[in-house]
């Protein structure tokens, strides 16, 4: 009995194998052909992501990259839906397109995110009309259990962003709440939103993950399972792209008020005798900001901003306020209604320009002493809790074995003068460094601050 069954399966298996061979099986040759055909539609998306810790209100910025797929020749892109999730602001999008061995970088804007699929759409900004290689999706995108698919992506872990190819199998097909194809291999970061290609060379979807409930997804999400977003889920958005995301910054300079705020929760409102709750408590006024100039004080409660009522009662509402300010133009005059000591007060404020972040800061590599120094930007000043009296450049890196290394200088040290020349900017440092190269002294005396204390380093350059 058992043997009989086995033989029947064997026959069946043989039959299937033959038929696959007759079609385009995922052989090395076919994989290479698909790679040639579709990998030109891949590009690399670079961005700045800022997450605000809802407990501390502190913003942490980092540079990120993801694979993006060109889905229409005029510059419509699809990328990882994690670009748009709760408590995270992604901005400063740049797209690197590789054509004929040459890299071109474009700016891009984020479009509004589809509600039903964790994919982000972007549009490349270009004055000249674009005609980029793009992916053509196949509408009928059924996959079978155990079916092998090819996945395209880029090498993001090595940061050289070469297109890559991998193969996975459909390990489960879930029927509810909607048809979901799960994959049997973990996805590398550079393969999320990578085109999924079947054995006929058709692009039947892209890879992805669902958002977890803490990231703004449904409670019963299957987050964490690598899956295929089949074309049916997103084709409507490719055909008629969503509008520009309201969260998108206009590039260049952003408006800045210069306050840290907390939501006016119920018990906070009760403490100050304010009814109803809702509003933003000014907790910190940044030195040198337009808020300081307008006379904001810690403890002020913002109730109306530029005609819009502020009814924040949750930590995440603080983000909406940040977005609201970013949506304005630097230099715009804004009326703010607030409560100070329980009494209403109206302040006029001219919005300033958001100071450069540490990522955009000027940097200089001093090869003579072996230091990489950076401008002390406002955000760094906040993170390191440096007073305005601390002027200089911050050592970002000490090159191993260099004179600075031998003199035991360390990253994080703030250089305040070189050989009696005060340093307050990267330009100052550069000038000082040039002077040293011209004079070739046996020793350079660097006055620096480490932590709360200052001191001298004696560096001996090698000429």
């Amino acid at each position, binding site marked *: 009995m058992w043997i009989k069954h086995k033989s029947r399966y064997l026959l069946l298996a043989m039959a299937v194998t033959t038929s696959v061979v007759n079609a385009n099986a995922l052989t090395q040759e076919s994989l290479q052909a698909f790679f040639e055909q579709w990998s030109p539609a891949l590009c690399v998306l670079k961005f700045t992501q800022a997450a605000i810790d809802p*407990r*501390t*209100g*502190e913003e942490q910025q980092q540079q990120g990259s993801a694979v993006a797929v060109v889905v229409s020749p005029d510059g419509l892109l699809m990328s990882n839906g994690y670009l748009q999730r709760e408590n995270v602001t992604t901005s400063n999008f740049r797209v690197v397109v590789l054509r004929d061995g040459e890299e071109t970088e474009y700016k891009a804007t984020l479009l509004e995110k589809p509600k039903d699929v964790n994919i982000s759409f972007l549009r490349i900004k270009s004055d000249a009309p674009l005609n980029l290689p793009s992916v053509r999706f196949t509408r009928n995108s059924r996959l079978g259990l155990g079916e092998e698919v090819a996945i395209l992506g880029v090498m993001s872990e090595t940061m050289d962003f070469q297109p890559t190819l991998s193969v996975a199998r459909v390990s489960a097909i879930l029927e509810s709440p909607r048809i979901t194809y799960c994959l049997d291999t973990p996805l590398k970061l550079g393969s999320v939103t990578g085109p999924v290609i079947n054995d006929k060379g058709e692009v039947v979807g892209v890879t992805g993950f669902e958002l977890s409930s803490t990231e703004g997804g449904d409670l019963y999400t299957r987050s964490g399972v690598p899956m295929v977003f089949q074309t049916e889920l997103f084709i409507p958005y490719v055909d008629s792209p969503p509008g520009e995301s309201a969260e998108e910054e206009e590039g260049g300079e952003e408006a800045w008020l210069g306050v*840290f705020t*907390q939501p006016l*929760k119920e*018990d*906070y409102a*009760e*403490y100050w005798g304010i009814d109803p709750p809702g509003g933003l*408590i000014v*907790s*910190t006024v940044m030195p040198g900001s337009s808020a300081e100039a307008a006379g904001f004080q*810690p*403890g002020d409660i913002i109730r109306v901003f530029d005609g819009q009522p502020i009814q924040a009662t949750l930590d995440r509402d603080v983000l909406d306020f940040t977005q609201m300010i970013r949506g304005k133009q630097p230099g715009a005059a804004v009326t703010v209604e607030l409560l100070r000591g329980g009494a209403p007060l109206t302040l006029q404020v001219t919005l300033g320009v958001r100071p450069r972040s540490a990522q955009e800061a000027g940097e200089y590599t001093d090869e003579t002493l072996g230091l990489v120094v950076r401008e002390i930007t406002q955000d760094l*000043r*906040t*993170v*390191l*809790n*440096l*007073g305005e*009296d601390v002027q200089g450049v911050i050592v970002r890196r000490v090159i191993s074995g260099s004179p600075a290394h031998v003199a035991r200088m360390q990253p994080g040290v703030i250089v305040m003068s070189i050989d*009696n020349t005060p340093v307050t900017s990267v330009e100052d440092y550069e000038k000082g460094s040039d002077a040293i190269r011209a004079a070739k002294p046996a020793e350079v*005396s660097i*006055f620096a601050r480490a*932590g*709360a*204390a*200052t*001191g*001298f*380093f*004696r560096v001996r350059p090698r000429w």
Partner: protein
Amino acid sequence: MKAESRRTDKPTPKGGRLGLLLFLPLLLAGCATLSGNVQQQVLDAKKTMAPTLVHIRPVKEVFVQGQRQEVLAVGSGFIISADGFVVTNEHVAGESSQVICVLSDNSELEARVVGTDPDTDIAVLKLEAGRDLPYARFGRSASLESGELVLAMGSPHGLTRSASLGIISVTDRYLGDSGGITAPYNNWIQTDAAINRGNSGGPLVNLRGEVIGINTLALLGAENVGFAIPADIAREVIDAIIANGRVQRSWLGLSFQEMRAKTDDPSVQGAVIADVAPVSSAHEAGVKPGDILVGVNGQPVNAHYEEDLPAVRKRIADLPVGEKVTLQLLRGDTAIEIEAVTEEKMASKGMQAEFLEWGFTVAEMTPELARRAQVPPGEGLLVSGCIPGGLASASGLAAGDIILKMDEETIRSLSQFDELYNKAIDEKTKLIMLFVKRGAVTRFVLINSEGMGEAPVDKEMLEYVD
């Protein structure tokens, strides 16, 4: 029968015994080099010091994660007077609620802490024995030479009546601020006489049976690299504590670096001023980092190497408090004189207190901390810990926060905060607002004494509770 005998006939135990036998003559040979005169000196020194040794068992107060706890510790010490003054380390007897001393005759006595000095890690205790006690005599540490034989005596790991022998490796080791240990006013005697945990506070003894140092530190992960506070500076501190209960020092707000940080030229004498505290008399008088201090009240100063720095700092500290001092400085190539008035140096260690109802602990600010945190001197209190899940922690307070205000009152001292806190507890005030500084950012933290029930419940936890 046969099988059993074979098993017992295994060769290894015999071999082990053989190994031991081979080892013993070696040890005896090692001892033989100390025979005769030197052996007698070691024995005499040990016999002189042994009756004065004190095994110290303090009940120490520690603050962990927002809670005050009492832990048992062990240390060493020695009696320095017939009427019962005992010397040990500050890190042994400081911050303790009770100090039990076990004397060499095994009698147990509770000691009173006369005073402590965290800057030199010295504490003085007083015993009321009702009889004259045997006491140790100090030797001079200034005339020590490296290579001299010394004994470390005390209670390593609580093992009383222990002695170990070694030599002075280095007489003036400078440890700077390494590993969180700050000893601004002294260098250290480095010895290879075994010093372990529990030796702290015990005497380092020369072959004349005199105390030449107080065993205090051992380098972790190293073999027999121990450090003792030199007797000369210890005696000054002990005398000050016995006389006043504490050590008063002057402060100008200056930090120094050795001349080598600027030049190798030995003819340039002085000490480099590396830092001037922003709120200090030296700053107000116009002293600048980079100036070279060449004299204090006309007396020359020289710190060519870092080992010379403690003496320079001590010179400033030993100036009378609140009096004018003339500093001779070199600014560039110009000799200048600056007058400044000394202030009293504030404690380098703040008091801590526990606030049970809110579940957190608070420490006093030190000048160093105030400067680092960018808080005006004399303001604020440091949150040293919060009990996880306690009211303070649930309200959003965290260790490292600095409390600037409670309701509308600026916080300036622990006693003032304690008073406000107790009032709030007694009157069962529902809502108390704290204004705190966290890094560069300030925020409001509302303590809602009735709000504990509203703390967010972890969804995951609910699923596991049946």
